[in-house]
């Protein structure tokens, strides 16, 4: 889906944190190398049968959970021009779309959060 130069690799803290916490939260079991291509409709929070209104509740809950983990447990700062609401909105947009990939999500995380130790 992503038509940018963002790459899925272990040098990117956005990729590593996205993978580690989604896996740790039980969203999938994949190792890092195969997780980037996973799509949202393969993750635990996704439902093919729920209405979009209820699917959105699940997507927003996961977005909020990731945001709190990044900011509170990893001490990440929002990137310049980003805020909690804009970051949540961006994460939810990716999470609400079944064909978004985990790499797409990591790209969105990278655009909105500055992690400790991240090279800019």
């Amino acid at each position: 889906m992503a038509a940018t130069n963002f790459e899925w690799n272990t040098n990117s803290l956005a990729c590593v944190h996205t993978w580690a916490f989604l896996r740790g939260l039980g969203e999938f079991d994949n190792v890092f190398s195969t997780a980037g291509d996973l799509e949202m409709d393969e993750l635990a929070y996704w439902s093919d049968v729920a209405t979009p209104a209820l699917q959105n509740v699940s997507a927003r809950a996961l977005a909020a959970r990731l945001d709190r983990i990044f900011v509170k447990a990893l001490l990440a700062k929002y990137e310049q021009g980003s805020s909690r609401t804009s970051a949540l909105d961006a994460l939810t947009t990716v999470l609400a779309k079944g064909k978004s990939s985990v790499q797409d999500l990591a790209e969105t995380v990278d655009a909105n959060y500055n992690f400790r130790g991240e090279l800019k």
Partner: protein
Amino acid sequence: MTPLRMTVAVVLIVAASPAYCAPEDARLPDARYLGTSPDIDVGGFIHNARSQPDVTNELLRDLYKSIALPRLFDGLDIQPKVFEVDTAGAAGGALGLAYKFSRALAFQEIGRFRNPLDLGLDVQANGNVAFSRNLNPADFLSTSASITARQFVSGLNDIAVAGAEVDSMTALEVAAANFDGAPAELEASPEWRAFKDRLSAVLAKAGTEILWQFGANAALESNQAFTTKQYAYGGAAGLAIRDWHTQGLFHIFDYPFAIVRVLSGAEPSFTPRGDACPSMLLGIDIVDPKDNKNRAVLSGGAKTYPRFRSELQTRARVAKIGDAIMWLDADWRVFQELGASDVIKNANQNVFSYFVATLEMGHGLLGSYANGRLPFDQQATSHWELGWQFKLGE
């Protein structure tokens, strides 16, 4: 009326995909099947798609990647379907699709709370469309807009960690990400186990996390031909709960699935999880059935009426085959008119209930069972779907 319908949800295929070289003996369907011709050989189509699921899914991936929809359609998911219906012994079939669309138009924090409170404006749509509309097993489309206040309540808002702790946790994550092996080997590796212990400590502080929301909405509900329509205005509340405690009340919902996981060998011991607690939506609407002729005939005019609606959904791991997780996904919707007249009750038009459950693994096998009816359906039906799924939309 046949109470049980067998449907097959498979695929739309474009054999003209340049990335695909079909085997000579593979009678895969070609681009003609994308049309709405009533002469489609659905039986052959299904047979060929089912006999080569890997090829089918590869084709669909190529098809998906070749389609670039305008940004307007961000948030659109389309699932092509083939309905194979056995009615009174006469087999037939029709192509169709299920669609979902969801977009947030605005999002703003309101007030200053320990657990932040937000206000959002959203639009959503979903439905099931069959090219032969009389073969649509769930002929109900809904398009809505809502303004909603929501709050994510989590113990994570209260935690304080030191920078050194974050650095050591990050080091464990990087080591685990660089691990070379299968998922089961990673699970047993010291780096993942150490990370998991640290994560468990964080999540123990998160406790029971709740996302709740409440708001107002307006919706257009119709059948796929738009010959029957009605408008609904009201309020709705939503709730999603995830319990991170080792054991707790909300783990009860996962007990049946935990038993199946043990029996299937997916897990060595009975380990119920706190993530199978159903998410729910509850709402009360005022329904204006001014373009619902059936309703007007029954009630002697298109009078507005109050309606309660609810939706419960859960998704749980049930087994593991190789590295692939098998999921059970279930959803139950109820629409009930409040204070319905005897005429409406006697016509069995006061309560509509629809249940659907699917069994799926990634983009592979799909098994689905649905029972009940949605508003506008005159009678309840049951149908099965077997096959593969794929979604379109950029």
